[in-house]
């Protein structure tokens, strides 16, 4: 707490002289930067170390002769070559891409339709349903993976990545619907009244007015659905066991570890490549990403 207090002192009391006030501000700024650098180091140590390890040679990783935090014996791409040629990484990547694309498509269709209906139209029980959706979002995957194991098995999708396409929407649809309800509600009602007078059908209203106007919300929801299905771990861990069906998260963590030796260089190269798509999306669409993150609690 003291850091916040020190840092916030710059806001000044309004009673001091102008000179001391600006000096205070400067010190507060310096203190802020100092502590931010400290936290940034804490937050960025693991990604930094993963990058460093991925570009080292196996010999350097294994022998610990040099400082592990830097690449002493030259940057090499061997780990990535090994990963892409000697392991099932590309199979995992393909499976994850298929699953994620399907889940994002399903999620967007289901949640945009439902959110339009719940946010803009009404029917008997719709407000209870909206509350129910929010509660569903709060149900964690670890509460349901055992009964879902039985269900996935019963429909014959155990150890198939299509089973993931079946169960991932439970993680994405509730939250996406919830934030889309918020976005649709924030659109002025004059718009749909005008459309109604012009004789537009509900479907036309949705596709011609609401989807274009709520596009930022839709992008935020899509990013959320993408990152959740890309990063899902519990369900594939429980439902998939052969390498040709495995997805990236579980595949990288389990299958790349050979029984005897941990090939840490290759593992880190795999983890980096697997984490790359969400990171790239985040780098380019940070504002949408953050909008989706904060919308859940501030809209509704």
């Amino acid at each position, binding site marked *: 707490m003291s850091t916040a207090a020190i840092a916030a002192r710059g806001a000044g009391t309004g009673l001091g002289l102008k000179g001391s006030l600006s000096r205070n501000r400067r010190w507060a700024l310096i203190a802020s930067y100092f502590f931010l650098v400290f936290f940034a180091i804490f937050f960025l140590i693991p990604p930094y170390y993963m990058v460093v390890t991925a570009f080292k040679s196996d010999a350097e990783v294994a022998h610990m002769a040099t400082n592990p935090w830097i690449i002493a014996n030259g940057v090499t791409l061997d780990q990535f070559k090994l990963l892409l040629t000697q392991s099932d990484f590309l199979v995992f990547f393909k499976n994850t891409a298929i699953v994620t694309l399907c889940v994002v498509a399903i999620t967007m269709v289901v949640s945009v339709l439902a959110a339009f209906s719940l946010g803009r139209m009404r029917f008997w029980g719709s407000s209870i349903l909206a509350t129910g959706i929010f509660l569903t979002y*709060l149900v964690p995957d670890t509460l349901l993976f*055992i009964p879902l194991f039985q269900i996935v098995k019963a429909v014959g999708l155990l150890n198939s990545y299509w089973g993931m396409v079946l169960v991932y929407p439970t993680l994405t649809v509730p939250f996406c619907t919830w934030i889309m309800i918020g976005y649709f509600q924030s659109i002025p009602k004059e718009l749909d009244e005008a459309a109604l007078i012009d004789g537009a059908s509900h479907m036309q209203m949705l596709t011609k007015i609401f989807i274009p106007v709520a596009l930022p919300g839709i992008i935020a929801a899509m990013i959320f659905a993408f990152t959740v299905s890309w990063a899902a771990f519990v369900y594939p861990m429980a439902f998939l066991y052969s390498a040709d069906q495995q997805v990236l998260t579980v595949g990288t963590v389990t299958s790349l570890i050979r029984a005897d030796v941990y090939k840490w260089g290759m593992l880190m190269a795999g983890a980096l490549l697997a984490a790359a798509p969400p990171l790239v999306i985040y780098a380019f669409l940070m504002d949408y990403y953050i909008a989706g993150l904060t919308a859940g609690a501030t809209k509704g």
Partner: protein
Amino acid sequence: MADTIHTWSPRLERNRLQQGLLSSSAARGLHHVLRRRSTIAFLMCLPLIVIIACLVVYPALYSIYLSMLNKAQTRFIGLGNFSFLLSRDVFWMVVQQSAIFALTAVFFKALIGLITAHLINNLPAKGQRKWRGMLLVPWVIPLALSSLGWWWLFDPTHSAFNYILKSFSHDEIAWLSNPYWARFSVILVNIWYGAPFFLIMYLAALKSVPEQLYEAAAIDGANAWQKFRHITLPMMRNIIAITVLFSLIVTFANFDIVQIMTAGGPRNMTHVFATYAFLLGIRSGDLPLGAATSLFMFPILAVAAIFILRGVRKRGREIG
């Protein structure tokens, strides 16, 4: 119920307006139009209802039934699985560790989130974006993959942390093989992963506090702590409550970190509910016992969920 009606009131107004518009054209068609409208609305919700009913509500209920069967799922044994779990020392350790894990991690996540949000809020506007972007990185990397990176940092023979400790001629620490250090490590990783979420939520909340309040307080001669205590905290109380409760649910049900870094060991001391349920249900093939284990999470999650719902509705009303 009163809350719900309040939340939806703009809609009622609009309906009334629309009815007015429509009655001018054809009073007879009005009933038909409204009925068709609600049918279409229901049909649009149908896919969502099917998904929630089949893949959330049904499994939840089925889980209760499943937890009352024997291992081979041939015989109904009532509460046998629950009483078996309650008689096991390991289970009580899981309860204890889950509580320590969730409470400690959420406390420090909220604290770090609050501090970093204030720090960033102090910066000049154009620098804020860059820092925010940088500090959110742990939240963006899929948790399973960053846990793997942490595992490598904690690796018994190659630990990069121990390299630093040794260079200060400090003893090596057995990060993941000493039970207490292992507990520390998994909590640390959870704090690392979750703090950025709090940072983003609190930063957004800080921006929504009206600047005039601080100016008025400055005129009254309030110092920084008084401003924080009497303006920032009350204005953010609701969002703090929502994020803490939400994080409590997510942290309590966390699986990835413990499963990857320790798989529950050493001596079962880092097991949380999710990993223990996975061990019993999937690894040992006793689905009913696993289902019973994860059902123990339900009461605490339900209580947290109810309070979150109250908070979100309150906030919805405040914003309007």
